[in-house]
């Protein structure tokens, strides 16, 4: 209240904004917030976050095997991996989700919203992250393979014991980026009827008409989630870098 009146006395504040913050409007906004914030948090906890975690886990497994297939598979496996990555990267995620959810029923394949989202996002993460993982594996110097082979290691032993631990360090920052991108992309699941964070916001906005306010609140909530994730990312990176950076003495 105090704030709104001081705004009105301040000539620098645009009329539109100051008139938005009169007493009745503010009460209405608090009421809307009390409705939409718990609903969005519930949507985040029950759908957004589980969807992101689940699809990232599945996607990483898919990505790993796709990367290995592209690097070390025979001609057939290599082409299969290439076609998969090309299709997923070459078409919009939203189109992929619509094909899965609205398109497949035409062929008699009906998938519920959440499983459809899990499939769509996992395929998406799998394709993009496979490129990250492939690049990370290729970034390990060739002589590391040779050193492993010289000890008598098989391809698999060299990959698991020597190459992958070094590749992980390279892959963590871009994969963290992918994960944060994924968390935000899950808002697209609202369009195939998954009742996640953004769909909750849309539902309240549709009845209260507080579009700007509610969508800014929704954005804020995504930001809080992603900020938390970036803190986790920093810790993970430090963990994987500890021998490399920690080993160098700066004194």
């Amino acid at each position, binding site marked *: 209240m105090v704030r709104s009146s001081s705004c009105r006395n301040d000539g620098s504040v645009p009329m539109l904004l100051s008139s938005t913050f009169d007493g009745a409007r503010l009460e209405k906004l608090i009421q809307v917030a009390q409705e939409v914030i718990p609903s969005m948090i519930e949507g985040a906890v029950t759908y957004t976050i589980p969807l992101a975690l689940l699809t990232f886990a599945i996607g990483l497994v898919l990505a790993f095997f796709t990367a290995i297939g592209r690097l070390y598979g025979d001609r057939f496996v290599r082409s299969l991996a290439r076609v998969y990555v090309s299709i997923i990267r070459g078409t919009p995620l939203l189109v992929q989700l619509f094909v899965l959810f609205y398109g497949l029923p035409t062929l008699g394949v009906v998938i519920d919203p959440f499983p459809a989202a899990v499939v769509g996002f996992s395929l998406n993460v799998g394709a993009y992250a496979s490129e990250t993982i492939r690049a990370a594996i290729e970034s390990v110097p060739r002589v590391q393979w*040779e050193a492993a082979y*010289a*000890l008598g290691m098989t391809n698999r*032993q060299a990959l698991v*014991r020597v190459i992958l631990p*070094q590749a992980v360090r390279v892959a963590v920052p871009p994969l963290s980026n992918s994960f944060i991108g994924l968390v935000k992309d899950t808002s697209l699941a609202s369009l195939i009827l998954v009742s996640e964070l953004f769909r909750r916001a849309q539902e309240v906005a549709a009845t209260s008409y507080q579009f700007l306010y509610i969508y800014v609140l929704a954005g804020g909530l995504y930001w809080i989630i992603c900020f938390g994730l970036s803190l986790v990312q920093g810790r993970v990176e430090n963990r994987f870098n500890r021998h*490399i950076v920690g080993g160098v003495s700066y004194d």
Partner: protein
Amino acid sequence: MINVANVTKSFGETTVLRNIDVTLEEGSVTVIIGPSGSGKSTLLRCLNALERPDEGTVTIGDVSVSFDGPVRSKDILALRKKTGMVFQQYALFPHFTALGNVTEGLRTVKGLSQQEAEAVARPLLEKVGLSGKEDAYPAALSGGQQQRVAIARALAMDPDVLLFDEPTSALDPERVHEVLGVMRSLADEGMTMVIVTHEMTFAQDVADTVLFLDDGVILERGTPRDVFVDSTDARVRQFVQTVRS
């Protein structure tokens, strides 16, 4: 005994090794010299099949691998277990400590327990003058120290022969002696070694046999004196003079 018979290797159009035949005695130190691009490193790397010869046979002790037809990976692994290699760029595993680098092959390839592997690795680190550095990661070690860990890592597998690919070329000059010192004492113990190097003084002091390679062919083979002093081959004499000056 190491025997290389009729080994030929090309990279695309370029022939790097032409019908190499050479036998190296057990307990001997062989130094391979020659101008850059002469095939020295390729010959060395053919001994443990890091490069696969296009044809020919490599024999180390009781393992003989012919490259004239398809080669079974089992045979390649057997050949590699007979050899240890030290690389120009050290090639330590950066995610393992010095001790971890030495135990890694014992654990993964030989299947030893951590305790058994450490019982082998610790004395080897001490032997190369690095006791106290067991828990250091490669990034915290100097080039000379890293290369000595690499020697310990190769020794841990108890190979019949140690292969050195320009082991001192990447080192600061004042660090070279650390590594050469370790190699000298290995030679004194009767370790079979094949060394590609530009350290002519070292070659002269330590080598039993010097091979002079040029354009994929062994031009001269003999004692250091035969090659460095008494060679009648014009190209050998010229090379020796150039590296001496």
